């Protein structure tokens, strides 16, 4: 079995899709000649030239808007935001424009734009370079949101995202970039569907629904819970945040009777709260204990590593919350 890093998986997906469809082009800061701050787009300019890999000035609003314009006539722009925090700089073009254009035009125009880049904490980048924006994107209808955790899923989902006629936010995570995992052979038609969760660990007592880097934290927490407390967790990797694959989650909760949603974006008005609310709307009878969620604490992410560790909803907090849920 071939293995790649997460970065390499994304790079491969980009290369394959660019080769397959000449309408695909990349646009963003430092992505061309340099190959991207995190080297995700390395070598692509050499292979496809300056017209397919555009180095922009620091003008997120305008190049996001340009992506929309180009997409209306069938181009398939893949926009890199160097840090997903910069979503806020281009927020009007993303949420007032890209997410709404198909609807506002009564379906006359399609906006197949992919917005990709890395998010998340863990590397002490502080308040403006560590935010997770999945909940923010999910709040606005009209844009798909995917956040794969493994190289395998990342490659397959990015290829699907590029071919999707909807705008898609493709959220990477800085802690995942150098992780390695199974990868499909290059150039294969390897597609992972948007909107389909994947059970990454089977279990019987508690369902942990999560995605992106938190998946690994949840898996580790599950190990600890199993070993030290005899609690068996099923870990569902949502992979897609919009639309949420609640079917797979309810299937799991039907077995476990307990649901904990975990994500790194702010807990307040976050995806976890959403999942809890939907559980009580759609499948309250499945729950044997109150459904819970964990997200980023309501503070601006601090730089200091001890403070940052405190706000991230990682392993220890997952373990503690599951234990609390079991006590009910």
């Amino acid at each position, binding site marked *: 079995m071939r293995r790649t890093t997460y970065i390499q998986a994304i790079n491969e997906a980009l290369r394959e899709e660019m080769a397959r469809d000449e309408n695909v*082009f990349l646009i963003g800061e430092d992505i061309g000649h340099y190959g991207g701050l995190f080297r995700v787009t390395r070598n692509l300019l050499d292979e496809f030239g300056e*017209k*397919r890999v555009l180095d*922009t*000035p620091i*003008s997120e*609003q*305008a*190049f*996001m*808007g*340009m*992506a*929309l*314009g*180009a*997409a*209306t*006539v*069938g*181009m398939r*722009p893949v926009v890199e935001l160097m840090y997903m925090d910069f979503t806020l700089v281009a927020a*009007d*073009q993303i949420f*007032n*424009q890209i997410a709404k*254009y*198909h*609807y*506002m*035009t*009564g*379906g*006359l*125009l*399609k906006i197949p734009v992919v917005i990709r880049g890395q998010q998340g904490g863990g590397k002490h980048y502080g308040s403006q370079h560590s935010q997770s924006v999945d909940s923010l994107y999910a709040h606005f*209808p*009209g844009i*798909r949101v995917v956040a794969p955790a493994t190289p395998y899923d990342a490659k397959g989902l990015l290829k699907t995202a590029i071919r*999707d*006629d*909807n705008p898609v936010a493709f959220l990477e995570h800085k802690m995942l970039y150098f992780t390695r995992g199974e990868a499909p052979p290059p150039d294969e038609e390897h597609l992972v569907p948007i909107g389909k969760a994947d059970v990454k660990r089977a279990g019987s007592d508690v369902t942990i629904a999560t995605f992106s880097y938190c998946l690994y934290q949840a898996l580790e927490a599950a190990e600890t819970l199993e070993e030290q407390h005899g609690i068996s967790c099923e870990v569902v990797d949502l992979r897609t945040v919009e639309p949420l694959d609640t079917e797979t989650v309810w299937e799991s909760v039907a077995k476990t009777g307990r649901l904990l949603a975990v994500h790194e974006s702010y807990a307040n008005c976050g995806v976890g709260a959403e999942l809890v609310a939907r559980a009580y709307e759609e499948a309250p009878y499945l729950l044997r204990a109150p459904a819970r969620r964990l997200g980023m604490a309501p503070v601006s992410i601090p730089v200091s590593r001890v403070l940052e560790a405190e706000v991230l909803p990682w392993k220890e907090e997952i373990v503690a919350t599951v234990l609390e849920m079991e006590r009910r």
Partner: protein
Amino acid sequence: MKPVENEPNVEISGKSAAAPNSEAEAETVESAVSASISTEVLPSDSATELDVPALPTEMLLEMYRKALAIRLMERALLAAAEEGQIGGAMHTAIGHEANAVGAANALRKGDYVTCTYRGHHHGLAWGMDPGRAIAEVMGRSDGFAKGKGGSMHFVSPENGMMGANGIVAAQVPHAAGLALASHLRGEDTVAITFFGDGALFQGVMHETFNMAAKWKLPLIFYCENNRYSEMTPIWRTSSIEDIFLFPRAYGMETMQIDGNDVEVVHAAVSKAAERARCGAGPTFIEGITYRLAGHMAGDLETYRPAEEVEKQEAYEPLTVLRQKLTARGVDEASIAVIDEEVDEMIEDAVDFAEESPWPDAAETYRDVYV
């Protein structure tokens, strides 16, 4: 026609920007601008440096028909709004017609346009059907966007009309994206984007100017300068005295033209399109025009004197066009025939819209995703 009170200040290319040399001078320029630009008109004969060829009479007649259709549709819409048939924010283009009609006629099938919430004139000039347009504004099922977009979101891809926008200046990078698509595909299509004088101070304009100039995109920036940003005159909030000179800082070609004269607009846009098609990059056109109606339906217009509007009515696009036609020997009777035909067309269009059914509630949930 109003006599020329100012020096002609329409110029094209080659002239360099003269920044004021002292604050005192800057102040003088500012008050001169607020006194002149904000209340005066610029007759087309002052367009000394832009070569404005006379257009065929047939084409002028066609343009007159279009401009009149716009005017009458806008009046009908204002009436409908007063009756409570239209909600939200509806901005009419009364007085702005020549900018749209002149530009649309200078461009080709396959070219693209994006514009602001004040976009009805662009819609019609680019070939949209008035009936479906009115239906859209009224939120009916026969609206081109099934009533979802309304007045601020005119769109018609088959006519190259790629969208109006409710967010000031947001449509500008969209047009740059269309131009980028042409550029990347090696096509010779051109994109034009319309925005107001107030839009110039949105940051995204600057970002788009820079990239469009850098990449020499086939793009025409067209500023419909009606001297007001909603209820605030432009000089009150800006330090830029001559809008058309400003984009030169990006190394762009710029022109200031009479936006009330279809022939001038046609000449300017033709020239800009030619530059764009041969790879010479974007052009910025400032069309001096005037909004004869309120900023939006319901505007009481307390912020400008009635005389200012009256003065402008003496030199507005339809008057200018009629004078041109008369000068070409088109007689009153022929014009009256057109007037009647267009009037009837718009009446029919209103009837069509009013009879159009409301969209089905289920329509609400369609088109969120493809």
